[in-house]
């Protein structure tokens, strides 16, 4: 029987042994085995407590209306800049609540990804690699789930909250396999089919589960594969998830908490993200839509960022208050930015040459800005970074050595693009 061509949690898919041994040897040189326990192993243990929260600003958020305003210039539009909680850092007036949380965040204003296509831009921002017919790479959510989750966790390690709960269970986990693919939620309801059928007693449910486990065990005694392991894992995960449906139930939140986040879909989705992270989910992605504003860019950004600002700022503040921000990497990304040029109908088009990604929490420098665009925002003039460097940095920020590889079917598969490096200057 052919082995499945994705990581399954077996030794074959462990952290690349040569890399580990190499690290160990290097550690021995500089400090003996003590380095291992205090350094690599300690970091690895710490990584298991780390989380990632990604806001995907679907369609292409305008950097000029958000993180890198250019008021009074040819390209600035009507958007003004406002001071933030960090002296010297200004962001768009459309983000007044976020401005007050800037001391938790870091702006990377020199992003140049050179990809203006929606699909390809989204792919490279979520995988850290350019799309290629020769290979498929796992998204950051799948990688985070793989590297940060444990089998003992009751909840899935990779959750995407998106309007309509679309997507998920696609090829976002690539060679990591379906166990690291996302569970999609819409913020309104628990995962589909996670409730016990009406009329089924606990006793019947337990007997049903026991029967399945017995049949499984008989089948697995004749041979295990990555596929059967993933299949078994899915059932076990579903069982655990059914027991923790309460985590997805926003009705358990006091009314004033819902009010703090805003009585709209995105507010509820952010509150759900807080509940998931608080309960140990390793990766949560919240999609906010839609920023593809070829037409009337300013009206739509007023509308969309007006909805985004308060829930996002409230969530960042709450993570800090709950003591979770040191363990949680926050990323605000998009597939690209928008053109500095304002088109005929007050729109901005796709622009990947000079835009902004925001990070915060975990090991990211707080209250910082890195990288700079020119006066009209048309080009990066300092601190240029790309998707590959960002992907490395996301992993390093949660204590994962982004230069390591996985062995899949005998092939070394680097977690992040080996041609890129982490942005060490934004990590502490």
């Amino acid at each position, binding site marked *: 029987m052919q082995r499945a061509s994705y990581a399954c949690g077996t030794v074959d898919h462990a952290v690349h042994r040569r890399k580990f041994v190499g690290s160990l040897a290097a550690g021995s040189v500089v400090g003996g085995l003590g380095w291992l326990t205090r350094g690599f192993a300690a970091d690895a243990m710490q990584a298991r407590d780390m989380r990632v929260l990604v806001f995907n600003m679907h*369609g292409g958020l305008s950097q000029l209306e958000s993180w890198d305003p250019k*008021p*009074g210039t*040819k390209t600035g*539009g*009507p*958007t*003004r800049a406002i001071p933030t909680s960090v002296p010297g850092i200004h962001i768009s007036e459309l983000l007044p609540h976020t401005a007050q949380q800037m001391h938790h965040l870091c702006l990377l204003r020199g992003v140049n990804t050179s990809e203006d296509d929606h699909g390809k831009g989204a792919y490279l921002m979520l995988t850290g690699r350019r799309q290629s017919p020769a290979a498929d790479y796992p998204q950051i959510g799948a990688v985070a789930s793989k590297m940060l989750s444990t089998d003992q966790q009751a909840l899935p390690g990779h959750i995407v909250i998106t*309007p309509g709960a679309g997507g998920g269970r696609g090829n976002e986990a690539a060679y990591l396999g379906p166990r690291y693919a996302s569970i999609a939620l819409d913020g309104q309801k628990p995962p589909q089919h996670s409730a016990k059928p009406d009329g089924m007693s606990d006793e019947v449910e337990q007997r049903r589960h026991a029967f399945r486990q017995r049949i499984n065990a008989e089948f697995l005694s004749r041979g295990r594969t990555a596929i059967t392991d993933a299949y078994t894992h899915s059932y076990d995960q579903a069982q655990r998830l059914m027991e923790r449906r309460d985590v997805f139930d926003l009705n358990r939140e006091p009314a004033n908490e819902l009010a703090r986040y805003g009585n709209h879909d995105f507010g509820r989705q952010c509150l759900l993200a807080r509940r998931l992270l608080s309960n140990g989910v390793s990766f949560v992605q919240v999609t906010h*839509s*839609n920023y*593809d*504003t*070829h*037409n*009337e860019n300013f*009206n*739509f950004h*007023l*509308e*969309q960022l007006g909805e985004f600002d308060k829930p996002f700022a409230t969530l960042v503040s709450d993570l800090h208050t709950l003591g979770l921000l040191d363990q949680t990497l926050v990323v605000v990304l998009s597939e690209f930015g928008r053109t500095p040029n*304002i088109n*005929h*109908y007050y*729109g901005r088009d796709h622009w990947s040459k000079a835009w902004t990604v925001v990070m915060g929490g975990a090991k990211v420098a707080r209250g910082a800005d890195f990288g700079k665009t020119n006066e009209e925002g048309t080009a990066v003039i300092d601190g240029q970074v790309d998707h590959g460097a960002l992907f490395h940095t996301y992993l390093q920020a949660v204590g994962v050595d982004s230069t390591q590889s996985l062995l899949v079917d005998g092939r070394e598969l680097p977690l992040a693009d080996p041609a890129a490096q982490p942005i060490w200057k934004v990590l502490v």
Partner: protein
Amino acid sequence: MESAGVVLAGEPAIDPAKARVVNDWTYERPLLACRMSPTGAIVVTSSEDFSLQRWDLTSGKPLQLKAHESWVHALEFSSDGTELISGGCEGNLVWWPILDETPQPKRTIAAHQGWIRAIARSPDNRLLASVGNDTIVRLWSLSTGEKVAELAGHERHVYSVLFHPDGRHLLTGDLMGKVHLWDIEARKLERSLDAGPLHTYEGGQRVDFGGVRGLALQPNGSQVLAAGLHKATNPLGAVHEPLVLRLDYADGKLLKSHVCDGIPGGVIWRVQCLPDGTVIAVCGGSTGGFLLFFNDQQDKDIARFKLPALARDMDWHAPSARVATVHHDRHLRVVAFG
């Protein structure tokens, strides 16, 4: 397209078929809004560089005026044409002695949180009304700048404002297609008219779009014209068609939906009524710029004039029967009819 051949009682006749650009001047940056002075001697425009421009219509020379910290979408002359009030996206109202050799702001008021979208002057020249993104309708003394009233009732951005000729009522239109009718003296919302077809919620893109971009009244005040767009199948991609709704002022009944064939990427930015009741509208959007004409007999436009470039605003000047238009291509144009 049939020629309208409109004849105005007591005014010059206009024939849209004879429309032509008689003045065409260029500024440094794309233009946003315009108003002609009551005398017809000057036009004031606003630009993406935050400034206003005073254009002398005999020389075509612009004089740049600076006071705002953002774009200016709202302009209004006093009835005698000696003052101009401008409302900016930073939320300030500015009074200008516009006929001075080099006008300087006479009064600046922090009037709104966020954008001012539209302003209007009362028929008796006593009040100025302002609306914008903070959803509050505010009334100001035109002579002193003092705030007279705040009217709350809109739930979303307010796009347009207009005094009724009876002087006792104010109409305001918002993103959701609601037209509120306010009793000025009682300072309260009297009733609302439904211009809902001007609003689109596009579920796939998760955006509210459209709104009452322009408001006008028939000269006798009996009908309301609410303008904007509909058929917004792709709001983010500028796929939508222009629409003017004709509503009965007394009971809010929809009398006509004026549509336009062949403008798949159009939006009406402003609508006005000529003294004989003919409706003129300026259309921008991805299909280009048009002046559109409607009457109360036909659903579709009775005439249209293709402008040389995409338009963003217009102002009809009744005494000279001319229309000023401003464009993304940085041009101020004046259109005459005959």
